[in-house]
């Protein structure tokens, strides 16, 4: 009975989503191998393990009914918030930032969980409300503001900004009025100034470096310059797999994590970049399409929250390694090395798969249909 249900669910899973994930896994692991093959290959093996764990998480989440997920939204969010609040108290410091909790077996990064929990709770909050009355908006702003405040003091500016923008996307999808939106947009310069005043030295340096990387070619601008050289020197078709000279010289200390895109760009050239961007683009479109099919508003908003985070990570990461954005330390989804980011990302895609499954299992007249697509 149970097994039959499980198989029914998986039979209804969105095939294009699976295909895109498989291709992204291939590209990610291929690139990571190139980045680490001269050094510590264990990183690559571990990433394969993370993929296995992530696929398990994906399949598991694709079985969790959305109704049940809705019930879980608040408890999960509150627990994650508590964990996040504990970080300044008992967290571990790694590389100058206090982001980690040591739970004995695993080292947990609560900010990694809270962003998904926030999407969940925000979708749940707006599921039967329109974000146009003050009460709804104020609660939503509190929901976003508290975790964002806790993350920004860690300090982790990149995650905070991604979180704020993804939350804004969910709010917009939830009916946030345009006049408020443009009003806030006008206030942005003031917010930027305030943020600048409260940035840590290294963060300010990174922003300045972004404005003019050549001003300190061996200091903070070094990474970006070297990354741009390696992307640019890749040309149209790249230098060939495992033949990237820039990567081989280990100019980047983080070439298997944040700067992995430049390895890909150097070795596969614009051709490889286009393939990667195409895969990301198709994945994003597919998720938006699933969001439009969803029969409940909760499911649609959840999809939008998840896809926003995915999109922003992708955009901010590639933007920063190619010198378009300041270096904020955001990984490239599916490609950068890292267990918790990958597993949680795949678990969230599992939720999206679930949305697809449930909308397909509905009778045609119960499905949410899009007037436009």
């Amino acid at each position, binding site marked *: 009975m149970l097994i039959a249900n499980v198989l029914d669910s998986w039979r209804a899973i969105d095939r294009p989503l699976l295909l895109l994930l498989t291709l992204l896994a291939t590209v990610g692991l291929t690139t990571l191998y190139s980045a680490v093959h*001269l050094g510590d290959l264990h990183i690559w093996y571990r990433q394969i393990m993370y993929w296995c764990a992530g696929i398990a998480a994906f399949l598991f989440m694709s079985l969790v009914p959305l109704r049940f997920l809705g019930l879980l939204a608040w408890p999960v969010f509150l627990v994650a918030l508590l964990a996040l609040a504990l970080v300044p108290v008992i967290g571990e410091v790694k590389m100058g930032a206090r982001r980690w909790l040591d739970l004995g077996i695993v080292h947990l990064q609560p900010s990694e969980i809270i962003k998904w929990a926030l999407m969940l709770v925000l979708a749940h909050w707006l599921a039967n409300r329109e974000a146009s009355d003050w009460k709804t908006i104020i609660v939503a702003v509190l929901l976003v503001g508290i975790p964002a405040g806790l993350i920004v003091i860690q300090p982790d500016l990149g995650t905070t900004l991604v979180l704020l923008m993804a939350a804004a996307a969910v709010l917009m999808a939830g009916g946030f009025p345009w006049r408020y939106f443009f009003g806030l947009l006008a206030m942005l310069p003031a917010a930027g100034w305030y943020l600048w005043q409260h940035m840590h030295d290294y963060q300010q340096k990174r922003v300045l470096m972004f404005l003019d990387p050549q001003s300190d070619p061996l200091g903070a601008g070094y990474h970006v310059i070297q990354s741009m050289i390696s992307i640019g020197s890749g040309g149209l078709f790249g230098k060939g797999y495992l033949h990237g000279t820039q990567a081989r010289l280990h100019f980047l200390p983080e070439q298997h994590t944040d700067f992995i895109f430049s390895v890909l760009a150097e070795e596969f050239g614009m051709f490889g970049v286009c393939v990667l961007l195409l895969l990301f683009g198709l994945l994003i479109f597919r998720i938006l399409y699933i969001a439009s099919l969803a029969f409940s508003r909760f499911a649609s908003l959840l999809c939008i929250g998840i896809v926003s985070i995915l999109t922003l990570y992708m955009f901010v990461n590639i*933007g920063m390694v190619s010198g378009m954005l300041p270096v904020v330390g955001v990984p490239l989804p599916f490609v950068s090395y890292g267990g918790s980011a990958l597993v949680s990302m795949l678990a969230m895609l599992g939720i999206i798969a679930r949305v697809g499954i449930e909308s397909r299992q509905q009778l045609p007249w119960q499905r949410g249909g899009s*007037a436009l697509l």
Partner: protein
Amino acid sequence: MAYHQLNPYELRKRFDFRLLLFYLLAAVLITGLLLRMINLQWVQHEGLRLQAENNRINVVPVLPVRGEIVDRHGKKLAANAISYQLVMIPERVQDMEGTLRMLNANMPWSKRKFARIKRKIRHARKDRPLVLDERLQWHQVAWLVARLHHYAGLDVQAATHRVYPYGELMAHAIGYLAKVRKNDLAQGYLADEYVGRSGLEREFEARLHGTPGSQQEEVDAYGRRVAILHIIPPKTGETLRLSLDVDLQQAAATAMAGRTGSVVVMDVHSGAIRVLLSTPGYDTNAFIGGVSGKQWNSWLHDPQKPLLNRAIQATYPPGSTWKMVSAMAGMRVHAPLAHQRTVCHGMIQLHDRKLRCWKRTGHGPVDMHDALMHSCDVYFYELAEQTGMKALITEARRWGFGGRTHIRLSPEARGHLPDPDYHVYRGKKRRWFQGEIMITAIGQGLVTATPLQVARFAAALANGGQVLEPHVLAAAKPHVLRQVDIPAAQLARIRQAMFDVANTPGGTAYRYVHDAKYPIAGKTGTAQVVAMSQTQARYTDKGVKTQHRDHAWFMGYAPYDHPRIAFAILVEHGGHGSSGAAPVAAAIVNAMKL
């Protein structure tokens, strides 16, 4: 307006419109990235490609110089000497085969060493400098430097290696270095670094090691270094100034004259260790560049155990040096005998057994003072009857026996104090037998102590009952672990007796130390190694196998009236404490500069 009051059709329309905006936004973002890529990879490609070719910057780590270790007078105990190394960065080598062939033909490498080097190159990180040969001779340096420009990826670098000017003498205190192991690399050490593996080199690794720097080099397309762009200099490790006095240690070693044992000398007021000697030693210089397996095994299997730091890692029965503990226990519990005399007939009858005094003919009438001065065993047998086991053990614990001294040298042995209430043997408890309590009172039986503990005990007797934490750094502050509360009059009795041991004719050590430069107060000890049958001779006589002969102890302090140093000397199988160990104390006091 609440959600359910809104027109569902209107809502859906609004949602779909905004969803469309998301499609557009995603498309715009991706297009933006694509435009940037076109800019970099197509428009700017030529310039960036040239930069990648001609202007590769590589960051190479630079090893720090290890801090030196000096004694309290600034004499170098562990220093650095310059050596020249042959270094290779494997990924810069164009023709690995040819380079290796050239090196093998011209360097005096054995087949095994060459195989080892090849293996090392295969397994190491390709972007980091790899040391192929650590100690180049001058003519090799000259020869190599003349040919380096033909071989990319090779370099001759000046580096430092450790030298121990007092190798064997200071071996146990200073310790030695060894090449990094795999788990060190995980902690951030670089390949080819040396790490403190023993002694102070290990204990103060963090302070001695220093911080590696880095060097950003511009290399050309063939991997040759064109220029050094930027150097973050490594930070030299801290110089460690010790409280040890190498001259005094030398005097102690000379007086030990090749015998196995240990000498500890401690400042009675600060707890600073002046001498920490364990003989035989081993030459720590042999560890530089890797100790040979043969040498290591010979040390490991030497019956004299040269690798053992006897001063802190070996425990011995304290023998008669422990009698002060028993005497103070007696006074503390107001044992009648502490203020009376008894008569020593050379032995005491206990049921069907005889417990002997070391003097077969007996000491005659003795009180506490005489018993300490002549080291009479019978007096202490009888005193133990009155104090009981508990008082003895508690007193010993007060003076720091049975627990680590927490000197910053590890591993340290605790020594053993038995349970005051029960004899525990193979998990079973029983009451102490009378005879066991009696021999405990003369420092035999189950009690054991390290020479360092005994020296600290002597220091505490000298400074009025302050049990100090021993330390080896010159800068360390004195740290009193415990102040033993003992009436001054009682302590004075003990001290007077210790003075008479050394300076009054008839005292056990009188012959050997009374003419030392400063008056010594001390106590001899002769600790049994093999259980003595009461009918046999003591194991001090000639004709008894060396490994069965007694250990000789001498502990005390000097000068008597204004104590400065306390010492403990242990000579393994040295026979009597008086003739075996006391002369070493005289030599130390004679070499001492106040």
